C-alpha cells in the first residue's frame, strides 16, 4: 500500500444499497482485494447522496469521493434515483473547482450487484489515480490554516 511519497489517500464511497453495496459485498465474499483506502457509506439510493455529503467529506479531509449506484437507465431499485445522482454529480463537478478542489477527485460509477470485480477495479484504479494526484488541497489548507 505504500507509495513513493508515502501518501495514502482517503476515499469516501457512497454506495447504494441495492447494486453497488451488494457488489462491494460480493467482492468481499469473493475475497477480492481492493485498497483499504476506500471507506464506504451505505445509502439506500445514490439519489440520496446530498451535495452536502460530498462537500462534508472533502471538508472532513477526504482526498476523493466515489458515488456509485445502479446502472442507468433502468437498474435503479427506486426507478430513477440514479439519474438524480447523475444530475447532482454534474453540478458538483462544476462547483468543486470554485473551492479549489480538482474535479477528478469526484467520481460517479455504475456498479451492479453482480459486479464485485468492477468494484474492485474501480477502487484500485481510483486509489491509484488519487495517489498520483496527491493529497486534497482542502486538507492542506486546513493544515496550513
Amino acid at each position: 500500500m505504500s507509495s513513493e511519497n508515502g501518501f495514502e489517500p482517503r476515499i469516501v464511497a457512497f454506495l447504494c444499497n441495492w447494486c453497488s453495496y451488494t457488489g462491494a459485498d460480493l467482492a468481499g465474499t469473493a475475497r477480492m482485494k481492493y485498497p483499504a483506502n476506500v471507506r464506504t457509506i451505505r445509502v439506500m439510493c445514490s439519489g440520496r447522496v446530498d451535495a452536502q455529503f460530498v462537500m462534508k467529506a472533502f471538508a472532513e479531509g477526504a482526498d476523493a469521493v466515489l458515488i456509485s449506484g445502479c446502472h442507468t437507465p433502468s437498474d435503479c431499485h427506486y426507478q430513477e434515483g440514479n439519474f438524480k445522482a447523475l444530475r447532482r454529480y454534474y453540478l458538483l463537478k462544476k462547483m468543486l473547482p470554485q473551492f479549489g478542489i480538482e474535479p477528478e477527485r469526484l467520481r460517479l460509477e455504475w456498479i451492479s450487484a453482480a459486479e464485485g470485480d468492477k468494484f474492485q477495479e474501480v477502487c484500485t484504479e481510483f486509489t491509484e489515480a488519487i495517489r498520483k494526484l496527491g493529497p486534497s488541497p482542502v486538507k492542506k489548507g486546513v493544515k496550513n490554516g
Partner: protein
Amino acid sequence: MADNTIKIKINGFEVEAFDRQPLIEVAEKIGVKIPTLCHNPIIEPYGVCRICTVEVRHRNRVRMVTACNYPVTNGIEVFTDSERVIRNRKLIIEWLLGRCGNVKVLNDLAEQYGITEPRFGRGTDDCILCGLCVRMCQDVVKANVLGFFERGPKRYVSTSFDQTSDLCITCGACASVCPTGCIKIDKLEEGTYKEMPMGPVTPIHIDFMQAVPKKAVIDKESCINFKTGGCKVCVDVCEAEAIDHSMEAKEKEVDVGTIILSTGFKLQNGEELKEYGYGKYPNILSSLDFEVLNNANGPTGGKIFTQDGRVPKSIGIVHCVGSRDKKYHEYCSRVCCMYALKFAHLIKEKIHDCEVYNFYIDMRCFGKGYEEFYNRLLKEGVNFVRGKVAEITDAALDKSEQGKLILRAEDTLIGTVRRIPVDMVVLCLAIEAQEDAKEVSHFFSCSVGRDGFFIEKHPKLAPVSTAADGIFIAGVAQGPKDIPDTVAQAGAAASAVLSLIQQKEVEAEVVTASIDEEICSGCQICVGLCPYTAITYNKDKNISELNEALCKGCGTCVAACPSGAAQQKNFRDNQIFAEIKGILAV
C-alpha cells in the same frame, strides 16, 4: 328414450336398438362384424361399396340393404351371413379385385371369404372409389379439393382439371381415411426435422407426456376448423363435450403478495459454434435433440436412428460445448457431465455394439452416487477421451472415415491428436439464461448477473430471496443446476413464500422519509421528485405532506430538500455526516 327403443333380430338374436339407428351400429353393439370399405363413423354414410349388404326380412318381404345406412325399424329380422348375402359379398369383392388386384384390404377380405383367384383377374388400379377421401374433403374438412370425375367405369378421384389445387390445405385427412393407402402426401421438405423435432404432430395433441396439466390442446395454425370452418370431428367424438373452437386465449390478472421467479433457461444455439458443424451436417444433435430422439414418445418411439434411418455404430458425445469456454460462457453448466454419462449408458443399453466416445475436459461427478455411476460406465466399455474437441468435419482422409463425422481432438492423456470417425455426435450445449431475463428482472425490481441469471440476495443467508421484498427465485433461472438441486431450491423458495404468507401482515418499510411541518416552506421541490407520488402539497397549510405507506425510502426528497425539513429514518443528514466524520477520523 324408452319409447324410442325397438327390438330387432340379428342372426336370430334379439337386440334392442333405437328406432332408425343405423343397422351397422346395432350389429357392432352385439359384436356382429359386417365388413365395409366405404364407411367411417365420422363421415355421413354413403353406401357405395355395397359390401355391407345384408338381408332384411319383415312380414314376408325380403330386402337386401346396406347395413351402413339402413335405419332399423321395429320387428325386422336381419341376416348378416346368409347364403345369398355371402354370394353377393363374394362377387363384389371379386369385382373390386378386378379393378384393384393388389390392394391389401381387398386381398384380406378375399382371403376371409375364400376367394383365391378372382374370375375377372386382378386389376392394377389402387383406388377402390369408396369416396371416403372425397367426402372427407368436401363434407368434413370443407376444403372442396377432391372430387369424382367422369362416370361409370371411368370414374376416378382427382382435383379440378387434375391440377394441383391451391385450395388444398395439406391437412392429410384424405390420406388418413383412405382404406387402400393410395393417397400419399409428398415428402416433407428437408429441414422440417429441425422445425418439428418430435415429428409431425396432429393439430390436436397433448404437448408432451409430462405436460402439466396433461390436457389436449388445439393448434390454431394447423387445425382445419380455423382454415375452412369445417371438420369439427373432435367435437363429435369428444364424449366429455370439452371442445369449443370459439375459445380465445385470455389474459388474467391475479393479485398476489409474493412471486417466485423460476423462468428456467435456454439451451445455447449450437450454430454459434461453427467448428462443430451443428445445423450444417446431418446427425449432429444437441443434447435436447438427442433427448427427444431417445424418448419413448418421440418420433422414432425411442429407437436411435440416424437421419437416413441407420442404426449408428459409433456415437461421439462432446462435453463443455460453450461452457467453460472464454469465447462463450466461462461458467460450468453443471449438468452436462452427468447427462452425457446417462446418454452413454442408454446408448450402450439400446445398441450393444455401439462405440461411445465421451470427450471431456474434466469429469465433474460431484453429487451423491455420481462418481460411482462414472466408474460403472468405465466398466461398461464407454470410451473417455480427455481433451476438448477442436472441430467436427465430414472431410474424410481415408476410407474408414468416409460417410462419417470425424471428431478431431487432442487426447491429453496420451498426448496425441486423434481423429475419431462416428455416425452421430451429441453436443452438450451450454445452459444459458433466458434472453429476456434482464427485462424480467427490471419488471420485478431484482437483478441479474453478468451471465444473465437472477441474483439472490445473499448466497448463504438469503439464497432464494432477491433484493425486492416478496420476490423469490428458484431453479436454473438463478444459475445452472440439476434437477435435485432445483427441487431443493424450489422447496426453499416455497417455504420462504409461505413464511411470509403465514405472517398475515407485511412489515412496512422502515427507512421511510418524513417532513417536518415546522420547517417545511412549501417549495414543492420534493413533490416533483418523488417517483411514488408519496408527497402531496397541502395548500391550506402551505406545506408538503408525506404518505408513509407509499414511501419506499429512497431518500431522493431528503437529498433535495433545501430546508432540511425532509429527513429519512436511519439515514438522517446528521447521521450520515457523523458517519463521514467517523470514517475520516482515522
